[in-house]
């Protein structure tokens, strides 16, 4: 039952996000646009480039979608509405999302195209920048909850949400999450106008439809992770718990899209430098502050 409900919620959120994305890019609010666009992709010819690594080319979009859904499987929408309430939930989110990199390397290498390959390897460099900024803020969250179980993490924010308790962690996590989801301004692996689509470049038809669905699912999953780790999860007045989770998740996801529209694309070297010289020291500071708060505040 939980599986069906969570998958439906994910799909609904992806649809809403696609509507908003269309709205911000075209200026028209069309509720049926994502559906029509999906059907159009299915109808188009699905071209396979010359001498591809067929296995990687076919597997990459599916792998990206699977890891986004797997990461969402351990994130609760309500106290009992979670597919798998694992004892290592917060770590599992990381483990699943690490395979985004594998999927993008496959998508870059598979089609045997220069732009795609540069895009794929670029994401590897991007990972070196953002990876610690995903893990270290989650460490702060787990320290406060004294658990890696995601439902316990939400319950630990019963009185004060982590957005107040560790705002620095939230800022670092959201930046890293946007880099992980390769949304603008961190869309270096796809980089339209510079890499001609990068890892997306050689995909058409049904494969491109799966790739786009996977990218939006990834954004929703990361927004849900932000909600669970920092925004008190299902906590909120009046409305039922699942509704609060969805509202917060969509708000975070839309904020990510909007932020991307108003920021210029960052250079790979700058991203790496800022993440390592500023991001990681700040993440360490966050862990120290949380450690002191956990020990001092009752």
């Amino acid at each position, binding site marked *: 039952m939980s599986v069906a409900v969570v998958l439906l919620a994910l799909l609904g959120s992806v649809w809403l996000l696609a509507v908003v994305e269309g709205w911000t890019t075209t200026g028209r609010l069309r509720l049926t646009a994502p559906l029509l666009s999906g059907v159009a992709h299915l109808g188009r010819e699905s071209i396979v480039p010359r*001498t591809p*690594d067929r*296995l*990687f080319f076919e597997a990459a979009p599916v792998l990206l979608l699977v890891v986004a859904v797997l990461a969402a499987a351990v994130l609760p929408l309500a106290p009992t509405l979670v597919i798998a309430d*694992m*004892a*290592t939930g917060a*770590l*599992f989110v*990381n*483990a699943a999302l*690490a*395979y985004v*990199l*594998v999927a993008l*390397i*496959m998508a870059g*290498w598979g089609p*045997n195209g220069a732009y795609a390959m540069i895009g794929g*390897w670029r994401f*590897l460099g991007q*990972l070196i920048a953002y*990876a610690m900024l995903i893990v270290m803020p989650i460490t702060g969250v787990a320290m406060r909850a004294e*658990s*890696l*179980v995601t439902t316990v993490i939400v319950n630990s924010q019963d009185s004060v949400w982590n957005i107040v308790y560790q705002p620095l962690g939230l800022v670092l996590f959201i930046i890293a999450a946007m880099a992980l989801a390769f949304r603008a301004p961190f869309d270096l692996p796809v980089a339209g106008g510079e890499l001609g689509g990068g890892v997306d470049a050689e995909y058409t038809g049904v494969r491109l439809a799966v790739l786009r669905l996977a990218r939006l699912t990834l954004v929703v999953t990361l927004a849900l992770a932000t909600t669970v780790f920092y925004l008190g999860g299902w906590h909120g007045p009046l409305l039922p718990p699942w509704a609060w989770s969805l509202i917060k998740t969509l708000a975070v996801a839309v904020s990510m899209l909007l932020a991307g529209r108003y920021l210029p694309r960052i250079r790979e070297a700058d991203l790496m430098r800022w993440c390592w010289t500023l991001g990681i020291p700040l993440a360490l500071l966050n862990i120290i502050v949380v450690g002191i708060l956990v020990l001092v505040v009752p």
Partner: protein
Amino acid sequence: MYAQAFFVAVFGLAAIGFGVWVFRTSSMVRSALALLFSQTAVGCMFLAMQTEFLGVLQIMMMATEMSIMAIFMVMFMMDPGGMGGMDMTHQKRFSIGAGVVAAGVAIAVAVLADWAPVSAEAPAAAMQTRELGRELLGRSMMIFETAGITILTAMIAATAAAIPVQTPAHSDEKENPE
């Protein structure tokens, strides 16, 4: 119990299968990712054996490590895509001999070792994580810290060695082209 043994066996065979694939392909990326999936299968074996934290950790760490290894293999091999028909193996007889001996030793240890009785009930996953944390911050702290510092030193040394040395003569040439 039988289901557990079944899944351990399935993931074990998958790990061996992917391991064999590492050496059967000529593509460096395929080889690196086959090794990744072999290690992921080992992580799944940990999960099947109810050691949740170690399993998830193994699955997480390998994704990044093997992908980084892939780019180094692509950079340093002369035929990274495996499409040039180069034979990249060498010392075949020696490696077959070493492989057979190592496999024999591993099987002998597995069969002849006196394994302690199988614990009927594994501790809860959260308890295992807690115990592991205490182990890492207690008795095993020295070993892990030593290993960590050694790896960090090797990384810094490798990076330092990889940066091209700019001799004063070269920099002079750049500044004064005459």
